[in-house]
């Protein structure tokens, strides 16, 4: 089986209440999987659960065949998983270049190829490499956040709303970068608010609602689904 991520019946939450009530999903190698759903559905929570940032009370998470449930975050990163959170996803008081350096924290040896790759993907960042990340525009900050995660050359990349608050031009650029990264063999799981565009570009999608799976299928199937459309795609 070439599934990079397998999440089975995940149950958990922040306090005593369970936000996730049995979420399951999987992502194959070099696949883009998008998670959509209404606000508060538990999309971000499902991603945080992979990194153990909340109490997981049931279910299991497997990355490339190894069960990682309950691991320390640094070990999960070592296993090749990178995560870009929805908010506070850059080191504001560090420069753009230092943010990338932190992304490569666990890597040793010559990193110049990795820097070149990120700076080629995001030419804007190259110009501003000495600027503090906190002083950048929202779009540039989102690029720093993605660049930081790409520095490790992960096998699984988790992106929580990478296009939030961005103009359509930036959004298209981010989607294109996702495709390029996927084509190098990386699995990408992303949460998206722009459900229509995201489902159109993803290989497969999951619709979460109230902390549970509601629908799943290829992007095209979900776009065509009446129930999904009624739920939140609008007209």
């Amino acid at each position, binding site marked *: 089986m070439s599934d990079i991520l397998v999440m089975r019946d995940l149950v958990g939450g922040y306090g005593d209440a369970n936000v996730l009530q049995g979420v399951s999903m999987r992502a194959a190698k070099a696949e883009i999987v998008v998670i959509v759903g209404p606000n508060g559905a538990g999309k971000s929570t499902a991603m945080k659960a992979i990194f153990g940032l909340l109490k997981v009370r049931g279910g299991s998470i497997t990355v490339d065949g190894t069960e990682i449930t309950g691991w320390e975050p*640094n070990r999960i990163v*070592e296993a090749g998983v990178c995560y870009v*959170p929805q908010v506070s996803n850059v*080191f504001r008081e*560090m420069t753009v270049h230092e943010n990338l350096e932190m992304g490569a*924290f666990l890597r040793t040896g010559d990193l110049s190829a990795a820097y070149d790759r990120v700076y080629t993907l995001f030419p804007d960042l190259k110009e501003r490499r000495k600027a503090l990340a906190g002083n950048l525009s929202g779009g540039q900050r989102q690029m720093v956040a993605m660049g930081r995660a790409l520095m490790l050359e992960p096998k699984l990349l988790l992106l929580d709303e990478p296009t939030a608050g961005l103009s359509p031009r930036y959004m298209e650029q981010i989607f294109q970068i996702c495709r390029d990264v996927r084509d190098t063999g990386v699995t990408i799981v992303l949460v998206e608010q722009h459900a229509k565009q995201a489902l159109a570009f993803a290989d497969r999608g999951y619709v979460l609602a109230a902390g549970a799976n509601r629908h799943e299928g290829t992007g095209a199937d979900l776009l065509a689904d009446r129930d999904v459309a009624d739920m939140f795609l609008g007209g």
Partner: protein
Amino acid sequence: MGALEIINFYLVPGIVIGSIYALGAVGITLVFSILRYAHLAHGDLATLGAFLALGAVTLGGVSPYVALPVAMVLTAAAAVMIDKAFYAYLRERPKIVTVMASLGVALMVRAIVQVVWGVDSETYTRGIVRPDVWFGIRLRDRELITIFAMIGLVLALHVFLQQSKWGKAMRAMSDNPDLALLSGVDNKKVVMLTWIIVGGLCAAAGVFLGLNYELKAMMGWTMLLPMFAAAILGGVGRVEGAVLGGLIVGIAEEMSTLFLPTEYKAATAFAILLLMLLVRPTGLLKGKVL
């Protein structure tokens, strides 16, 4: 009173005690920004460092300047052990629990110092040191060494934080702890590294306080308020700010005796702290808001 008298009797002592406060305040600011609590045992760790150096001086017969690095290493080890024995268990609990625990640690460390070294005042060396005079400004060797050692230690720390991999990890942990974890930084190592640095700085503050004044069991505890005032004045999380804050508090304390009875010296630091929290809670160099 002439300018030279003001320099000799107020400014120079102010800069010297300010340098000592700075060494302590840098440690306080690191603990504040990376571990996120106020460490009340900071002064007593300085006391421990001062007396460990005294131990090296009396047992090994070395000069206090040779004893300084020994005391820094031993105090760093003590700080790491204190963290593992007491604070590590409380990491998941509300921070106020750790603050209170550090008060307990302060009393404990002081009690150990009193049991081992007694309650009388001590000095590293006996006799009176005559100051050298430079253009009318009177400076003792130990005063110059205090100031330059502070500058040297802070510069070394600065280079470490800016240039080295683990220094950057410490800054990252202070900036955005969750993201640092998500980048693969091992929090346990950062915590240990922080205590090594903080322990070393505490010992330096204690040894220089002992060199310029005298050693007593309460020496560190009485420095706690001015050190906190300095850290907050400079901006929490700002190493340069802590140095600036330390110098300002030290000089202000000495200068206050121009106008106020010396008994009010300690109140000066408190007044500066209150004023700063009222007017600009982020500190001079815009640190974290507590």
